[in-house]
């Protein structure tokens, strides 16, 4: 356990986070975008747990934050997917670039 | 309550009256009454002014009054007139009067038309009576806005394009102008917007050098300064008759008057130094407008380009900075205002009957509508500078005055400008020959009627005014001369 510093974990989560960001920006399918968001959320969850465990081992704030975040992301995924399915039903397509009706 | 404020008040009251008016007849009565009242006021003002001067009142501005309306910037509603503004007010009143009669049978939305028309008049009259820089600017804007709607709604042809173009270009001009005005206000060191006080203040020469072009171009856009004139042909061609009349007749004069009242009066050093640039531009305007007019086929375009040429002459003369030429410039404003209004009125009447303005489709109208034909010839002769009509007086004053300039450069440009009298003759006679003489081009035109009473009223009033200036110019030119002195003295610093 000696060698495993906080930074090791943070690097992993950072990579995950920016992979999510990349996906968010470049993906054109709504579901793919949503998957990228899951990556981002996940990396943040890890960070909460990490900081709790490494820096404030006696407490549980980070732990609970992660717990709740997982719950919230579950909600988010459920609602988002519901919306996506609804859109798909209306326009038979879930490409971002085709979703212009709201704009104009 | 100052008697000058009536000029603004009457149009406002007219708007109130129009608002209440229900039937077409009531609308016409309100419009005609108001316009006649304005004309009477203007004539009264001329006599009152001459009376005051004869009684020995030598103040720069007469009938002054002021009241503060925005203290932080020292903006006053302050009014007053000198000979020049009196002349311009008279011109505006005549044209508003005749404009009302020229738009007697608009056909649709008369009430709204006259409402905007009155707002426009308010702006115009307010501009000429103001001696506060900002109030003047405000009235200027008031005069511009209705134009957009008047052209856009009641116009013909590519009216939306023309209205948009006109408004945008004039607005761009007034943006420059606003910059200039604020510059003058803040940099003169005189915390006042009053023209007379500002004229006494000293604006440093370096500041003048960049303020002068701003103000001059700002007003120049409205005065059809080359190359900012292109709104004018499209705008005039698309506007309804009365609006063309008011626009070419009065609104373009706002530009000339502003250049003169604000740019030259307040910034004499810069005017002396930078005049040459604008003399070149206006010199081009004069000749260029005339040449462009030769090949046009739409009556209104011909007249619009001729306006570019004639208004160019106004700015040209103003920049000569001597009394004779400036006097000529003011006379030219009057003269051009009257005759171009006459032209547009007549074109509107012809168009109303034949439904075309293309000179290739017209011909022999003299036989069909002799009254309009004769009036058109008179307008044409006035435009090409026939002695006895107003154009000649103004042009001769300008040419002689400009030629007296000590500088050879200016004299050479005067000669260039002189050539416009020949080109003017060419395009005027071309049109007259094509549309009035010869055989009737379209047999449907044979059954058309001549002018009716309201059309006759408006044309006759205009012709009388044109001939009046042309036959007895001395009183007018003397009235203007008296008021030019302060400006000339300022310029000759």
């Amino acid at each position: 356990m000696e060698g495993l510093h906080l930074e090791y974990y943070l690097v992993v989560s950072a990579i995950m986070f920016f992979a999510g960001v990349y996906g968010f920006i470049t993906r054109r399918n709504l579901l793919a975008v949503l998957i990228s968001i899951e990556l981002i959320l996940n990396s943040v969850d890890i960070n909460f747990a990490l900081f709790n465990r490494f820096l404030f081992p006696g407490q549980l704030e980070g732990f609970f934050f992660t717990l709740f975040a997982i719950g919230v992301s579950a909600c988010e995924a459920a609602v988002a997917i519901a919306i996506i399915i609804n859109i798909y039903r209306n326009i038979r397509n879930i490409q971002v670039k085709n979703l212009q009706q709201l704009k104009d | 309550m100052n008697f000058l404020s009536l000029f603004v008040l009457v149009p406002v009251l007219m708007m109130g009256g129009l608002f209440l008016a229900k039937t077409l007849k009531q609308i016409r009565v309100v419009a005609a009454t108001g316009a006649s009242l304005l004309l009477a006021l203007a004539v009264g003002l001329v006599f009152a002014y001459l009376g005051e001067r004869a009684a020995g009142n030598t103040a720069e501005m007469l009938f002054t009054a002021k009241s503060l309306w925005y203290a932080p910037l020292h903006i006053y509603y302050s009014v007053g007139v000198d000979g020049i503004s009196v002349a311009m007010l008279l011109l505006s009143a005549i044209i508003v009067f005749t404009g009302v009669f020229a738009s007697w049978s608009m056909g649709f939305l008369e009430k709204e038309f006259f409402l905007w028309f009155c707002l426009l008049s308010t702006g115009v009259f307010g501009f000429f009576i103001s001696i506060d820089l900002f109030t003047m600017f405000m009235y200027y804007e008031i005069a511009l806005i209705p134009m957009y709607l008047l052209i856009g709604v009641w116009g013909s042809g590519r009216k939306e394009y023309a209205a948009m173009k006109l408004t945008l270009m004039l607005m761009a001009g007034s943006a420059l102008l606003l910059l200039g005005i604020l510059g003058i206000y803040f940099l003169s060191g005189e915390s006042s917007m009053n023209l007379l006080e500002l004229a006494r203040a000293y604006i440093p020469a370096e500041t003048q050098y960049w303020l002068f072009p701003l103000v001059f171009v700002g007003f120049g856009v409205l005065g059809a300064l080359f190359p900012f004139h292109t709104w004018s042909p499209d705008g005039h061609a698309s506007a309804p008759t009365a609006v063309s009349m008011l626009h070419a007749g009065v609104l373009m004069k706002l530009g000339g008057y502003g250049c003169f009242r604000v740019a030259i009066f307040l910034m004499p050093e810069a005017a002396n130094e930078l005049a040459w640039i604008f003399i070149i531009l206006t010199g081009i305007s004069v000749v260029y407008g005339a040449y462009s007019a030769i090949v046009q086929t739409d009556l209104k375009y011909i007249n619009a380009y001729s306006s570019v040429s004639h208004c160019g002459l106004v700015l040209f003369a103003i920049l000569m900075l001597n009394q004779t030429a400036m006097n000529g410039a003011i006379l030219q404003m009057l003269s051009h205002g009257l005759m171009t209004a006459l032209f547009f009125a007549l074109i509107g009447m012809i168009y109303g009957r034949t439904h075309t303005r293309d000179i290739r489709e017209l011909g022999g109208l003299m036989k069909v509508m002799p009254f309009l034909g004769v009036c058109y010839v008179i307008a044409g002769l006035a435009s090409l500078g026939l002695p006895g009509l107003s154009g000649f007086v103004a042009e001769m004053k300008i040419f002689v005055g400009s030629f007296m300039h000590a500088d050879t450069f200016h004299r050479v440009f005067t000669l260039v400008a002189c050539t416009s009298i020949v080109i003017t003759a060419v395009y005027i006679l071309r049109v007259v020959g094509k549309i009035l003489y010869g055989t009737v081009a379209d047999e449907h035109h044979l059954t058309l009627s001549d002018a009716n009473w309201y059309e006759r009223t408006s044309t006759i009033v205009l012709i009388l005014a044109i001939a009046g200036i042309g036959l007895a110019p001395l009183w007018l030119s003397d009235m203007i001369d008296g008021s030019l002195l302060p400006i000339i003295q300022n310029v000759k610093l």
Partner: protein
Amino acid sequence: MEYTLLIVLLPLLSFLFLGLAGKGLKPRVAGYIGTIVLAIAAGLSYITAWHYFTTAKVDGVFEKWTPLNFRWLNFTEHLHIDLGILLDPIAVMMLVVITTVSLMVHLYSLGYMHGERGFQRYYAFLSLFSFSMLGLVVATNIFQMYIFWELVGVSSYLLIGFYYTKPEAVAASKKAFIVTRFADLGFLIGILLLSFYTGTFSFERLTSGDTSLFAGAEGLSFMGCSVMSWALALIFMGGAGKSAMFPLHVWLPDAMEGPTPVSALIHAATMVVAGVYLVARLFPVYYLEAPDVLVLIAIVGAVTSLYAAIVACVQTDIKRVLAFSTISQIGFMMVGLGVSGLEGHEGLGYMASMFHLFTHAMFKALLFLGAGAIIHAVHSNEMTRMGGLWKHLPITHLTFLVACLAIAGIPPFSGFFSKDEILAATFHFNPVLGAVMSFTAGLTAFYMFRLYYRIFWNKATHHDHAPHEAPGSMTVPLIFLAAVTLVAGFIPFGKFVTSDSADYIIHLDWVVATISVAIAVIAIGLATLFYRKESSIPDRLATTFRGLHAAASQRFYLDEVYLFITKKIIFNGISRPVAWFDHHVVDGTMNGFATLSQRLSGSIRGFQSGQLQQYVMVILLGALLITVLVVFI
């Protein structure tokens, strides 16, 4: 002398009355009103002339009278346009000439224009013209002259275009106005230059011989000529335009589209000599300040005169022949002025020129009115439709013959005296010029008699109904003018009108007189040979000199040159490109600005795309930027 004002004002009133109320009047009444007014004016002019010339001379010269002069428009304190009346010998002479010819024309038109549509308008225009022309000759200053000069131009325009439904008439009126307007530009610039250096418009001051007035222009020159020469040459250009001097003469032949009496009044007797009058008016200035311009005037006059005479020989339209003859005769007058001196005996040319102006006005008006009577009778302008008319139109024939003899320079008709003196002055000035002018005089005799024979003799043409003599209102003016032409030569003109207002005793130069009469007689003889009877000689000559004949009958292609300049150069070469430039470049730039700002706003609008991903991207980059800024700076 205040009544002279009436001479000018009466026609104006008549014009206003007929112009405004004419429609309500019976045509005949309108005609009578115009004619009576003109008769009064003519009467007043005769009284004026009598009064003026019988008043004793002061120091041997006629005084200049200024019965009226008021300020009309100020330029500066010293420079102002006055309107007034200046009477001096030439002005008085012109008053007489104008009112006489005008009265004759008014009278004649009662018959000639009878039944024409727009009769009232016609008389209104005639009155307007008379007013302007009278105002022109009594002008006290050069600017007043310019004012009336323009008015004359407009009346001429209106009268040429009287038959406004005829396209040729409209085109001709336009051409006349524009060509003269172009010349007037020169006049105006000349005035500007002149007044700039002298500070005055007044004829009295300009012609006073006071050279200090011109001190300002001393030593200034432009392109090798002094400024004063330029000014005066430009003023002459104005005169050349009105007087149809080569190459500004192109409008005059076309102006014949107007009614014939108008041609007689305006384009033969009065308006076209305005240029001569202008030069005569400013003669002392020309002589003292710019003698080189006088030479120019003489040369232009000679060239014009010769050119017009040649062209006149081959025209077939009788009015055109007369028009070219007018141009030629005015050339004579110009030459007379050009070769003249100022003082005493030197002033022969001036005197002769004025004399010729006077006599020419009479006999040329007579010719035109005669031509009018002929056209009235045969309803055509073409010589080919005439011939053998002498027995149908006896009065016209006789009066026409008188006029022809006068213009050919056969004594004792008036033309002989005046033309002979011009020739004498020219020979005195330069023999070559004199020879040219003598030759021209010969040509004149030739083409006039060609005209005469082809109208009245030659082969008779068949007419549907026999031509008959004109009514009394038309023949009376003819007889009157013929009488004047017969006796005018014996007027001791040198007593009245001379360059220095002092007496000039005319004594004929017998050598010159003999030669010129001989030439005239030979020319007439030739014309008789060619045209008295039907003959093949003219045709043969025409074929022999085919090129020359064709060129002359096409007026040496000058009209084509003008057409080229106006159509190709001004219209297509300048105006169209300018309009194109305006539409595409200037307007295009403005529209370009509009498009540009539209594009710009379009691209700014792109940032607000509503695309979440793009927003995120930008937010991310922004956050990174801020981080970098906070951390590293």
